[in-house]
């Protein structure tokens, strides 16, 4: 069909919105609430355009083009309307762009700049601070809490004064995660994003996945790392936390080491203008060294340990699959993965009955922390109390994991002192004035720098299973596989199911594996298992849709049409490529892993391994 945009004719195929068609032909209509992954919200109205024959302006994000449509995207009426709408959004906004953590990638700021807005044209006070000044609902239980900042230690912090009420966070939390702790409270001028009873996110079952944060167009939602030393302090999260870390780095008496999670290397470049999915491993190592970390290690190595431990655990369960109930076809012995802390939070609060089925193996982050403060400390002859362990993560929940009750191997100090997101690191890099793209590649340090491709693909949905299957298959078959690619559990679908012929349970059945990402999908799989419709030996769950490559701590993109899944897809495919060209593709082949078992840990699932690399889980209350 033919349509006309700004006086020029275009041919269009298929069902597309005005926003999409315009983006295709190079007209970027600013928009704040639309994301390809979330479905239509049409709440911000910034994307309005003129369609001839219609008396009112229409939102481009929700309007499907039809044959003969005549669209104006830059008539004076459109430009003025857009500018006014943005100015109204800014009218009750806390205009602190300079000190704002999202200053480089805030959709509201970018759109307002482009529209040459007068930010103070309608400026009133950011009224959502300290309670409603415009008349709260009568007798509200805690009306003074309207707009209160969430305190520290919630890992996700809300600032309603930077909220444009687009509703993305509500939608992603309710639909992708089926957690649903965010809702629009109040109405009219008092409307704000809040949780039940005006409480903080820390007292409702938020799993700290951070999906709301990567979907927020502004800084109304932010991560907090909550290192123990800053506990309980009211603070400007990101600025204060980065300052805290910088001081640690500058302290001669503290040995500061960092380990980089698998998915961070394929995403960090994006924060500095490199295309999404660029492999920036070498530059990332270089930048961490420039920032003053004493040693830069690879968390993929710890992922290799996770595979050794979790695989051995699974093998044990497969052998004593006595609880397999043929009649109800339920696997009482199903093993769920444990490496995603948001998933663990979810199980602890929503499904405590599943806790015995969750692998006791610690996540790579915690394995690394435990090894750093024991094996590494001994080897280097440094008192573990003087080692400060930092994790570079695609994730917000990792901070909650580092502080989880019972996670540390010793009472004296934490195994992981601080977990920072890729976004937080990119802020530090910018602060230090380092030109990331110009850096020369550097290599990880010894002795914790060598890792396999199996550890690398942990960062994407299906990767954990594939890595484990490589090791378990070869252990069971007692021979080398020619092909260690398990293609049928790759890809971004929310639920992938496969039967693995190379591995059998004690009944001689091939094992059934489910690979799940997104908590809504996990909920579906749990229901299937419980109702007896499905049975699995092994279920991998990652809370973020697509896995850590789409993590809550990843760089935020300002593509004209926001599509986090597409970025995740590109990051994942880079990882699979890197794995394909790695000479070392099996965790059990990793010489460093072998050596540390020999020198220090003993056997997988052995006594020392059990003490350092495993943990136990307690149920947690949903509401405080």
């Amino acid at each position, binding site marked *: 069909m033919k349509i006309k945009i700004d006086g020029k004719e275009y041919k269009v195929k298929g069902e597309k919105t005005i926003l999409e068609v315009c983006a295709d032909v190079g007209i970027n209509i600013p928009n704040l609430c639309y994301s390809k992954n979330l479905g239509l919200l049409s709440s911000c109205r910034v994307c309005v355009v003129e369609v001839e024959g219609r008396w009112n302006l229409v939102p481009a994000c929700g309007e499907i083009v039809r044959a003969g449509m005549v669209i104006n995207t830059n008539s004076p009426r459109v430009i003025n309307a857009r500018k006014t709408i943005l100015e109204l959004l800014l009218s009750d906004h806390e205009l602190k762009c300079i000190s704002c953590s999202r200053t480089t990638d805030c959709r509201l700021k970018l759109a307002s700049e482009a529209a040459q807005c007068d930010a103070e044209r309608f400026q009133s006070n950011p009224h959502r601070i300290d309670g409603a000044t415009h008349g709260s609902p009568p*007798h509200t239980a805690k009306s003074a809490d309207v707009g209160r900042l969430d305190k520290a230690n919630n890992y996700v912090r809300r600032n309603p004064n930077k909220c444009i009420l687009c509703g993305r966070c509500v939608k992603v939390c309710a639909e992708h995660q089926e957690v649903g*702790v965010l809702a629009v409270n109040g109405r009219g001028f008092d409307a704000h994003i809040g949780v039940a009873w005006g409480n903080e996110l820390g007292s409702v079952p938020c799993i700290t996945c951070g999906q709301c944060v990567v979907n927020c167009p502004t800084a109304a939602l932010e991560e907090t790392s909550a290192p123990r030393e800053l506990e309980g302090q009211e603070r400007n999260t990101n600025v204060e936390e980065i300052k805290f870390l910088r001081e640690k780095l500058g302290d001669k008496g503290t040995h500061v080491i960092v380990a980089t999670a698998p998915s961070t290397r394929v995403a960090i470049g994006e924060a500095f203008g490199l295309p999404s999915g660029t492999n920036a491993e070498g530059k990332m190592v270089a930048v961490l060294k420039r920032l003053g970390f004493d040693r830069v290690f690879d968390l993929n190595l710890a992922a290799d340990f996770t595979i050794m431990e979790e695989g051995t655990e699974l093998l044990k369960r497969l052998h004593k699959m006595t609880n397999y109930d043929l009649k109800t076809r339920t696997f009482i012995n199903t093993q769920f993965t444990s490496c995603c802390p948001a998933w663990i939070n979810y199980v602890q609060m929503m499904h405590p009955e599943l806790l015995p089925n969750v692998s006791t193996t610690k996540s790579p982050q915690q394995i690394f922390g435990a090894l750093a403060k024991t094996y590494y400390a001994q080897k280097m002859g440094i008192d573990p109390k003087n080692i400060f362990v930092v994790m570079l993560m695609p994730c917000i929940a990792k901070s909650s994991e580092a502080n989880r009750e019972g996670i540390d191997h010793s009472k004296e100090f934490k195994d992981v002192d601080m977990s920072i997101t890729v976004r937080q690191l990119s802020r530090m890099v910018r602060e230090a004035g380092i030109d990331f793209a110009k850096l020369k590649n550097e290599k990880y340090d010894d002795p914790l720098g060598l890792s396999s491709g199996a550890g690398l693909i942990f960062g994407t949905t299906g990767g954990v299973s594939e890595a484990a299957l490589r090791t378990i298959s070869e252990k069971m078959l007692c021979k080398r596989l020619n092909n260690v690619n398990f293609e049928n559990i790759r890809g971004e679908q929310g639920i992938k199911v496969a039967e693995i012929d190379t591995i059998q349970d004690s009944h001689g059945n091939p094992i059934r594996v489910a690979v799940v990402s997104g908590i809504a999908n996990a909920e579906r799989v749990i229901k299937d298992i419980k109702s007896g419709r499905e049975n699995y030996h092994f279920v991998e769950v990652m809370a973020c849709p697509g896995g850590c490559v789409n993590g809550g701590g990843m760089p935020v993109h300002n593509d004209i049409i926001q599509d986090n899944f597409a970025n995740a897809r590109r990051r994942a495919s880079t990882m699979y490529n890197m794995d394909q060209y790695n000479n070392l593709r099996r965790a059990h082949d990793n010489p460093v892993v072998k050596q540390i078992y020999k020198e220090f840990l003993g056997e997988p699932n052995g006594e020392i391994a059990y003490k350092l690399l495993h943990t136990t889980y307690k149920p947690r209350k949903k509401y405080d």
Partner: protein
Amino acid sequence: MTKQAFIKAVERERDGGSVLCALQIAQEAYGYINEFAIQTVADVFSVSQSHVYGVATFYHQFTFAKRGKYNIQVCMGTACYVLGAEEIIRAIEDELGIKAGGKTEDGLFSLEHNTRCVGDCSIAPIVIIGDKWLAKTTIRKTLNEIRKIKRQEEVRLP
């Protein structure tokens, strides 16, 4: 209403009704929306408590603390406002010694904060005390009504 009866009533709403209707039952039964009501509605409808709370805060018909025995609403719609609703509210505040949004210590009166147009502008200004409507009211008429209720209630006390 007993807890059991309330749960039953909400369960009936689940099939065909809505969260809104269930909340109305709670408001009716308890005089306000309490934590038990939010929990029950969330559990029965399999939605999160935040969602139910969000719905409840959107509608002015729901309150989150017990109202007084006589709830006073002063219509703040345009017609009533122009004809002196603001002054009437201030007078009531002085009479009862409370602020709009509050409740008297003896629990007899509560004064609503911001009543939207009640839809009868031809008889503005309007004050509603309990279930009694005062049409084309004045400060004196309103205060007299309040004092009358006070006297009645005193008599009733043993």
